[in-house]
């Protein structure tokens, strides 16, 4: 499963970059994140509860930041073990571009699921991943900018 997207965040690039590297911010923004702990400057361990189709699972897994080019881009790589439910893993190349309107965040993400998740939820994974990504960026934007104002119009 692959997906791409971009979001404009009304904040300077440095602030966006800092937030993307802040464990507390990530914990608030990752949907279903229960715990996250920095284990080194580039690695974290996390516990995330997710529901994909009929399967609800608690994933415990590791997150690693690679290809770090502050404050322009990094690759975030994660792998979660959901026990009997199976596993999920994936990553995203994230880049930031400064513009007069704010910072454009672009990502190219890919994800893979296995075990019961794949057996029962494979039809739903695309929609679920898109929903989770949207939720993450909503949360992220909200954290940096406050709640988004409805557009006038």
């Amino acid at each position, binding site marked *: 499963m692959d997906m791409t997207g971009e979001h404009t965040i009304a904040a300077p690039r440095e602030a966006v970059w800092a937030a993307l590297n802040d464990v507390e911010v990530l914990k608030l923004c990752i949907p279903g994140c229960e715990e996250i702990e920095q284990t080194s400057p580039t690695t974290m361990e996390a516990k995330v509860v997710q529901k994909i189709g009929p399967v609800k699972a608690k994933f415990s897994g590791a997150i690693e930041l690679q290809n770090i080019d502050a404050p322009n881009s990094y690759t975030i790589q994660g792998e979660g*073990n959901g*026990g*009997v*439910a*199976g*596993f999920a893993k994936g990553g995203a190349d994230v880049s930031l571009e400064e513009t007069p309107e704010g910072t454009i965040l672009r990502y190219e993400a890919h994800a*893979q*699921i*296995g*075990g*019961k*998740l*794949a*057996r*029962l939820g*494979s*039809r739903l994974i695309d929609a679920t991943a898109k929903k989770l990504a949207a939720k993450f960026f909503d949360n992220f934007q909200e954290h940096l900018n406050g709640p988004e104002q409805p557009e006038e119009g």
Partner: protein
Amino acid sequence: MANGATGIGARVKRKEDKRFITGKGKYTDDVRMENQAYAAFVRSPHAHANVKSIDKSAALAMEGVVDVLDGHQLTGDGIGNIICGWAVASKDGSPMNMGAWSALATQKVRYVGDAVAVVIADTQALARIAAEAVEVEYEELPAVVKADKALTKSAPEIHDNAPGNLIYNWEIGDAAKADAGLAAAKHITEMEITNNRVSPNPMEPRSAVATYDEAEEHYTLYTTSQNPHVARLVLSAFYNVAPEHKLRVIAPDVGGGFGAKIYIYPEEITCLWASMKTNRSVKWTSDRSEAFITDAHGRDHISTAKMGFDENGKITGFKVDTIANLGAYMSLFSSSVPTYLYATLLSGQYDIQNLHANVRAVYTNTVPVDAYRGAGRPEACYLIERMMETAAREMGMKPAELRARNFVREFPHETPVIMTYDSGDFDANLAQAEEAADVAGFPARQAEAAKRGKLRGLGYSCYIEACGIAPSAAVGGLGAGVGLWESAEVRVNPVGTIEILTGSHSHGQGHETTFAQIVAERFDLPLDNVAIVHGDTDKVQFGMGTYGSRSGAVGMSAIVKAMDKVEAKVRKIAAHQLEASEDDIVIEGGEVKVAGTDKALGWHEIGLAAYTAHNLPPEMEPGLKESAFYDPSNFTFPAGCYICEVEVDPDTGTTEVVQFTASDDFGTIINPMIVEGQVHGGLAQGIGQAMMEQVIYDDDGQLITGSYMDYTMPRAADLPFYSVHHASTVCPGNPLGMKGCGEAGAIGSPPAVINAITDAIGNNNLSMPATPQNVWNALQAVTASQAAE
């Protein structure tokens, strides 16, 4: 000794149905043992991975968890690897490459679902929760799922002792003759044909309840088996669970098998061993999700085939190359399915002198593949019958005419692929099917459908298959690890009622009725006086079980042999007591009489005489109980003609089977109602495979059709009212003249369906399952090629 109401040929309602339809059947999961614990398996979510570590501590700490056991403990206790019981050698003489299969994987997992540990706990829910708490660390390896890809150089190797994932490279027939036949052909039809992978889906999922008696060092296993004696034999001789006299296997009511319940799986072995380890009865019952990743799958062939014809449409040569996907491990009879049960039937109903088939069996990171209703013969039938129909279209001949020009008409007929067809009348079945299907009226129906915007098509399938497996010496010579005879015991009780003990096993076939019918007929007794005992190794001495449509031709023949012995003794007793010659004794109307006199003994008086032994002939042993083993002299060859008519909606690709006609030659029919039921069920499964069912793995080896949301089973509304007929020839090979009817529907129907759809859409290039999407795509290809012209 006619017994019109209940004897051979009577449509007797099934004796067993009262308990089944009132919910009183007793299945394995209904068994409740004292102090019973439950097993839940920890299974790999990866298709191919090294097992780095297993951390059981969290699960073991949970209250109610009895133990958590792994493969190191299992092998440490001497439990043997699971084996394939049929040795198929490669054409260069080398033995097949069988990789090790431990009931619980120790170092490596090879498919999603491969078990690495088992949790034993006080309740099923607790066992499942605790299984989630077992932490397994895996090191993932690349996986391969397609049979042809498994043979490529870049494919990961699944077993160390199977280089290139090749299990065997086997052949049958004469390649040089086949090549020469093709070279001499005026027309050659060439096709690539895949036979889709299906999941068996019996209504009752698999289940096991194992109990270890520490004082007696004795095990009892209740399990969903089609062959409890074979299970006991393998569990004893190969898996070292317990010697046979210390192991009782009971297969009570079993709700469908279709092949999937022949094999002895990791779960049964583990439950037995775990019952000893924990000193608790251990129960495991599969759920649907688990069944999709543990029950052996069926089919999964990729073939290329070339068939040559002379100017008269006579087949001059036939060459087939097949790759068979056997999954991650070799299941019990897996090796025989794409070889001796497949390629030996590639001659079909036709006189083909020059025939050669090459079969490569391969490992992939998928659920093991083994026999599924028809087992090899559906793959052979699908291939030949699609070839014949396509060839006829290419040569501008009527499909029925091309077939008829090649029919075998003299019996016995030896094919170039080791079968000897003993009887049949292929013309009679073709004619009967064509008449019943009103083939003559098809053009009018097609024109009428066209007015409604529908594409109507008609397709044939003239199938032959081999049942009644099989002469023991013959299959032994081909590598089988067992003999395939059957046993029976006929017990006449002192009150005259009869118990038949059989090594066959009924799991939907209605043996309790049909087996009783042949006894009622023979001794002219009420059906209710006869009971069938099966499925318990402590009751029945031995037996080979039920699969391959063998219970009539082989199982009932054993009963006939035992009844012959009983009858001989009855005649002696009656002759002695009635002071008559044995030759003058007749058995009818519940009595044993002296012909032409009023001297008679009631059947019950004979029983009583045998057991009181007050007045038996000199030297005669008391009692009236005889047993027999019957070893068949040949396979039997059910054959027939199926005609399918479909309507395709060209806008959506949706296909409706509007008419399905079957004419079968099953030899002698004991109970037409039950035979029709078998045909109906077989057709449903065949139509299911042809139009709906498909096991799909993604490229990483994840099964993505793991529930009925994604794996489509046929439902009543998807199927037409079948038109079922018979044109029988008596099988000369067994005393009742039976051929077998359990698998024919599933064997013969898929090519009829696809031939009908390809006729409707005008494109021969269509693979099973013919889902609306596949049909629509095939239609678009026609449109595109027409546009290009």
